[in-house]
């Protein structure tokens, strides 16, 4: 995978005593100590993060945690005090921190587009004039500009509104204009600074869905700032949690939920419903960790109620539950199956934990087996595995 944006040890300090503050950062001082000693505000310190092409990388944290500060370093809306921010620019890579003004402008016009929390639309311009802003600044000829603007407005379903002024639109529509303006530049990298926070919950969910749909088609690299973990878990392929200007944890959504790095992250995820993030893969016990009996029999659960006989190809040859032969059915059909004790459900690694739990419920707490794409047995989930995942023990 190609790297689109690479933050390397980024320190951002707001204030005049840059050298003094950087020295304090090196000695491990907190934001409060730096403020007291130098009067400067620590934006972020020692932030390293790699964002690959096509990812949605979410920066998360409470307000003041430095997430927006770090995001805005990518197009130098915030000046980096020390460190590098490498941005892919066609075939080469540019360090935004040190590049000259002309290069920076070209990056801003062609490579990195931005969507703002307060929309940042120009109120005296119509919707189409707003969407064309980036193209206009880059000197794209009018005919081409019109054509590209129209295409973007169609994409976000605003083509009937193109002659309206921004303030005549609802908040959700205004942010769609903001999205269209960013897409219109065809920049491969998109910076989104809490784009949906100012919207009411229903519209927010709708725009999140629209963004995911557009992303499936456009495959941009998106760096997304949010303070809402549900939002982060929903749209992020990677999540980075920040606290007091420092990165606390980076990982896939289920890593964050299953293995919080410290109490701050634990507090963050305390109110998240694990069922909305976790999959069978996250909670299963690997085949090698299960109790093996003789003749290729493997116990699926600790209580030894259910076992499979696995052949040399890894496929299931026979099943037994409570000492009687049983048959195995897919979790996908769990709703359609009659309740009976002679069946064992199986799931794929990607099956949601919710479906697995439903299957357990249907089969009177029998374990659920996990098969890979070639129907080979990879592991099993017992009731205890589910409970410990949900309770995060």
């Amino acid at each position, binding site marked *: 995978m190609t790297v689109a944006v690479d933050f390397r040890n980024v320190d951002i300090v707001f204030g005049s005593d840059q050298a003094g503050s950087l020295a304090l950062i090196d000695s491990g001082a907190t934001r409060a100590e730096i403020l007291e000693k130098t009067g400067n505000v620590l934006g972020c310190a020692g932030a390293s993060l790699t964002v690959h092409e096509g990812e949605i990388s979410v920066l998360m944290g409470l307000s003041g945690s430095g997430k927006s500060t770090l995001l805005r370093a990518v197009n130098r809306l915030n000046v980096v005090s020390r460190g590098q921010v490498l941005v892919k620019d066609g075939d080469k890579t540019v360090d935004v921190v040190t590049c000259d003004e002309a290069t920076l402008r070209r990056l*801003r016009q062609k490579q990195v587009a931005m969507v703002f929390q307060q929309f940042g639309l*120009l109120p005296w311009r119509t919707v189409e004039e707003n969407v064309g*802003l980036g193209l206009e600044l880059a000197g794209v000829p009018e005919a081409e500009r019109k054509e590209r603007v129209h295409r973007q407005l169609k994409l976000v379903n605003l083509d009937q509104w193109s002659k309206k002024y921004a303030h005549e639109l609802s908040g959700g529509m205004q942010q769609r204009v903001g999205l269209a*303006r960013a897409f219109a530049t065809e920049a491969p990298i998109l910076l989104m600074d809490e784009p949906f926070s100012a919207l009411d919950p229903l519209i927010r969910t709708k725009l999140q869905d629209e963004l995911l749909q557009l992303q499936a088609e456009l495959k941009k690299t998106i760096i997304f700032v949010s303070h809402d973990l549900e939002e982060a878990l929903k749209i992020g392929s990677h999540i980075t949690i920040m606290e007091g200007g420092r990165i606390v944890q980076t990982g896939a959504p289920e890593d964050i939920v299953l293995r919080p790095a410290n109490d701050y992250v634990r507090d963050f995820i305390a109110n998240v419903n694990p069922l909305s993030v976790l999959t069978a893969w996250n909670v299963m016990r690997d085949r090698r960790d299960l109790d093996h009996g003789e003749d290729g029999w493997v116990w699926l659960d600790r209580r030894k109620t259910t076992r499979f006989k696995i052949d040399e190809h890894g496929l299931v040859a026979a099943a037994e539950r409570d000492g009687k032969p049983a048959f195995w059915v897919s979790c996908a059909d769990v709703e359609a199956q009659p309740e009976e004790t002679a069946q064992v459900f199986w799931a794929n690694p990607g099956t949601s934990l919710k479906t697995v739990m439903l299957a357990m419920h249907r089969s009177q707490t029998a374990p659920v087996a996990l098969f890979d794409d070639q129907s080979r047995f990879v592991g099993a989930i017992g009731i205890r595995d589910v409970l410990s995942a949900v309770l995060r023990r």
Partner: protein
Amino acid sequence: MDPISKFLVSYKIPIGAWGKAFFTFLTDNFNTVLRAFSNGLNFLLDGMVDGLLLLPPVLLIALIALLAYVLQRSKGLALAVFIGLLFILNQNLWKQTVETLVLVVAAAAASMAIGVPLGIWAAHKPKVYRIMLPVLDLMQTLPTFVYLIPVLTLFGLGNAPGLIVTIIFVIPTSVRLTHLGVVSVPKSIIEAGEAFGATRRQLLWKVELPSALPTIMAGLTQSIMLSLSMVVFAALIGAGGLGTEINRALGSRRIDLGLEAGLAIVVLAIVLDRMTRIGVGGKK
């Protein structure tokens, strides 16, 4: 007199003498240049007045009413302008009104031409604004009569010195309102401009100025109103127009003449104010 006051008075700082020396220095050394400048300006202003007076008054009034319609897209306003100016003509003050109009429009245009760039500069450089501020205060609060005297000695009598005192009095308003307009541009839209790669020039022309336009236009309206209020003072140093009539009415205690000329100024003020209230031009 008590001893302390006596002591202070006996060491009076010769501010007046210094000021006089400065202006004497200017007149002694740059008299030709200053007079040439004021003669040229007089020629220009008089030429404009004569040119406008060549047109039949009713035609000129109709043209101004048409301009009012073009600017504001309002038939009612055009009609009101037409009737208002006909009233002035009816009072037999048309020539003086044209003289005043030229002076006011020239002063407002000049003070916008100088004040808007200064205001933008001040908005971008807070330090510049801090230095500019006391100068602006001085220009606005120093009693008008005080700078009539040096302007008179430097530029002589006529329309030109009248224009200059008016500009001095009016510029602070256009500077202040331009400054206010540009510093109040929301940060979010400036950042939007920057984030999409605007140059400094693009940022000024495509983001800051359009956003500040309503405030800058309010500055224009204010400039015109303040120019009108200076007309009477400018007449004291030889600028023509309605101010001359008012001064003459004051000198000879003629209530009727004063009332007529005064009302003409009011009508002119209302006409100009309504015509220049542009704002975001009905878009909002």
